[in-house]
């Protein structure tokens, strides 16, 4: 790896370097000021890199560099500083971030306008008369009209989209309410009337935008967390052309028949057949299996596979949309369509709320007309009814509760992607678990360390420290966890496919593939010191609290089931321990079909899985969760991602989601209760702009206060 850091740019004529290219890398390992300084200062010392800027919240580095530097070069440069990095796709336009920014702008405008109009309104309420009142109304109109036009757009757009499709959502009554109130107030101002409701309309927009911003913020935060963990399979490959020259080619330009050079530690950018070389490749993303698979010339390898041991030459057989990964991605896309049909709680409430409010408003208009109040008076009352019933508290009720719950869950290591995920999570009644990587840790854990002496452990740690082989990494984690200090070794070498060699004093120590071995366990390594050899075996351990979590889930009323692609024999032990039925030999399509069957029989399935083979099932489940160690596609498909080695977050998230929905429903009840008091006042014609303003703010404050009770929801 480190040898690639030597970049072929010997001259230091910095002025000549073309620094037009901008690349983005995810560096999940950064967490402090020291890391920022190390990366930013370290990278600019690399020839060809003009500047590097770290974004700690998103765990990203933006590098401005010479186009001659390819992504592997940059990655090696970051690796030389001691950080693992993965190139991210084209920075492009982040739609979600743009939407969030637009909402914040609208909120700022609405806030500014609401405060200033309120200032003017207070003087009107305190008794400004005649010309002064008239001037204040005009000033309010001057501020309110552009504000409604600008800050109201998110609501108008969504309402219009719904109406055009013959549906109704929360935004329809909001838009009608705001527009009618504004229109009526303009008319009042024109004829020099007594009351104008500009303050009410703009304040309503402000509160609702606050709810919208919270919602979007929550989604953005979780997405940033997932994106930081997200590793793009491979942005391209080093190609070997007929003349023996090698050049870097982006993944999108790869075609069948091309020859790729894949170094150890690199991921494949396309499906292919090995032509030369022998190596172990890690296809955990596909199978969830942690042991590397040996490949020889003639074997097929898949895009996204990680080459571990030695360099191989691979001829491309399928690239881009024809690869195995792309196939699974398509399957996932289709499966996810069912989820998009889910109607959120707030919109379900709006289905009943909106028509009844409009009917009420129309009835009060008709009633006052019949009572002989005149068109003007009746219209004023109808508008007051609309304004007072505008679902201000309703619009805040849901996002406020959800963001508090998501914040609490995030502190406990569960990233929930959006509010609708929480709502769906609360409804599940059956939990389907994948085995490898979900119920188990999905990585090898050494079993025989206890038999080793202190010095041997120190030697072992020194041997594995420099290696990226999965078994080495497992040993390093286990030994470092025990606080072992590495022994001073000399002549440390790693031989691809064979293992690590070093010298301790005048003794040779090695860690390598077991020779002449009859073992039932695929995962083993042999440690030799002098002429003594110790066999180290590895298992894929059950997550420490898997059994408790499954019991816990059953206690809160969920059925549990294990669905795995593994051999049934490998499942018996786990099924016995967790007292759960396990089904084996399931391909991705079979898991998908299983979920469809469960759904058809009326169940709402929570899918918990990690491998790419779980991807379609994750997308199809009513709700889904994936561990942070899961494949990228699975993390993208899942509604929530949980960090760490424990499985308890699954049960915790279901509980917190249920509590959240309970609070949301309480908030609905509060909002409706408020309407029961306020609407008769409005119909009776007693609602002045002052009453509307006070009622609106109080009801909003009450639902927010109720939502804050969820702070301790994640327990």
């Amino acid at each position: 790896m480190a040898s690639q850091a030597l970049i072929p740019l010997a001259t230091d004529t910095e002025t000549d370097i073309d620094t037009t290219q901008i690349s983005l890398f995810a560096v999940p390992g950064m967490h402090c000021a020291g890391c920022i300084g190390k990366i930013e200062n370290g990278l600019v010392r690399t020839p060809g890199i003009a500047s590097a800027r770290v974004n700690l919240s998103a765990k990203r580095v933006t590098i401005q560099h010479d186009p001659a530097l390819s992504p592997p070069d940059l990655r090696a440069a970051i690796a030389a500083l001691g950080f693992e990095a993965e190139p991210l796709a084209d920075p492009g336009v982040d739609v979600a971030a743009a939407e969030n920014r637009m909402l914040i702008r609208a909120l700022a405008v609405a806030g500014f306008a609401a405060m200033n109009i309120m200032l003017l309104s207070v003087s009107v309420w305190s008794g400004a008369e005649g010309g002064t009142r008239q001037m204040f109304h005009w000033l309010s109109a001057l501020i309110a009209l552009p504000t409604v036009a600008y800050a109201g757009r998110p609501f108008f757009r969504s309402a219009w989209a719904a109406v055009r499709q013959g549906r109704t959502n929360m935004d329809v009554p909001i838009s009608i309410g705001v527009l009618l109130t504004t229109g009526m107030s303009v008319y009042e101002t024109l004829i020099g009337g007594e009351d104008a409701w500009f303050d009410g309309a703009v304040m309503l927009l402000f509160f609702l935008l606050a709810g919208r911003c919270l919602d979007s913020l929550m989604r953005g935060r979780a997405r940033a967390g997932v994106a930081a963990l997200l590793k793009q399979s491979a942005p391209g490959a080093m190609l070997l052309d007929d003349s023996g020259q090698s050049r870097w080619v982006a993944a999108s330009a790869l075609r069948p028949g091309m020859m790729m050079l894949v170094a150890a530690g690199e991921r494949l950018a396309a499906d292919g057949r090995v032509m030369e070389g022998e190596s172990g490749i890690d296809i955990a993303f596909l199978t969830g299996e942690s042991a590397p698979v040996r490949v020889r010339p003639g074997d097929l390898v898949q895009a996204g596979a990680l080459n571990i041991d030695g360099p191989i030459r691979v001829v491309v057989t399928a690239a881009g949309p024809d690869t195995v990964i792309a196939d699974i991605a398509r399957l996932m896309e289709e499966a996810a369509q069912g989820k998009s049909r889910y109607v959120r709680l707030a919109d379900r409430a709006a289905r009943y709320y909106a028509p009844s409010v409009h009917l009420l408003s129309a009835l009060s208009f008709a009633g006052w007309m019949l009572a002989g109040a005149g068109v003007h008076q009746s219209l004023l009352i109808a508008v007051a009814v609309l304004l007072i019933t505008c679902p201000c508290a309703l619009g805040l009720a849901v996002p406020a509760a959800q963001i508090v719950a998501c914040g609490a869950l995030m502190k406990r290591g569960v990233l929930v992607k959006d509010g609708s995920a929480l709502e769906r999570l609360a409804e599940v009644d059956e939990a389907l678990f994948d085995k490898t990587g979900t119920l188990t840790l999905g990585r090898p854990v050494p079993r025989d360390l206890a038999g080793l002496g202190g010095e041997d452990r120190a030697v072992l740690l020194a041997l594995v420290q420099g290696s990226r082989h999965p078994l080495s990494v497992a040993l390093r984690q286990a030994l470092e966890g025990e606080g072992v200090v590495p022994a001073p070794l000399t002549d440390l070498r790693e031989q691809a496919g064979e293992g690590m060699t070093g010298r301790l004093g005048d003794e040779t120590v090695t860690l390598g593939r077991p020779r002449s071995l009859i073992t039932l366990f695929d995962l083993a390594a042999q440690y030799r010191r002098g002429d003594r050899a110790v066999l180290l075996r590895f298992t894929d351990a059950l997550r420490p609290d898997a059994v408790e979590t499954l019991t816990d889930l059953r206690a809160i009323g969920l059925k549990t089931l294990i669905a795995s692609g593994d051999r049934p024999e490998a499942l018996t032990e786990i099924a016995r321990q967790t007292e759960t039925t396990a089904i084996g030999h399931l391909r991705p399509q079979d898991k998908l079909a299983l979920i469809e069957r469960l759904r058809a029989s009326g169940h709402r399935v929570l899918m918990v899985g990690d491998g790419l083979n779980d991807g379609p099932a994750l997308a199809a489940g009513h709700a889904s969760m994936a561990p942070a160690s899961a494949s990228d596609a699975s993390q993208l498909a899942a509604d929530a991602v949980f960090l760490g080695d424990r499985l308890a977050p699954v049960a915790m998230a279901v509980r917190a989601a249920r509590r959240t929905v309970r609070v949301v429903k309480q908030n609905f009840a509060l909002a409706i209760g408020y309407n029961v008091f306020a609407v008769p006042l409005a119909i009776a014609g007693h609602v002045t702009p002052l009453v509307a303003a006070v009622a609106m703010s109080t009801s909003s404050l009450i639902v927010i206060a109720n939502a804050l009770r969820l702070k301790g929801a994640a327990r």
Partner: protein
Amino acid sequence: MTGLTVLIPIALSLGLLGLAAFFWALGSGQFDDSDGAAARILIDDDE
């Protein structure tokens, strides 16, 4: 009354100034990396 014709424009323009400043800050990416901003103050640059 005459005071109002001076004071209201002043109050409004001050508010608008604040709004413009917020827009500028948002546009120049000052809220993009809140964790980083908190950490950067601890970087020792004199190496």
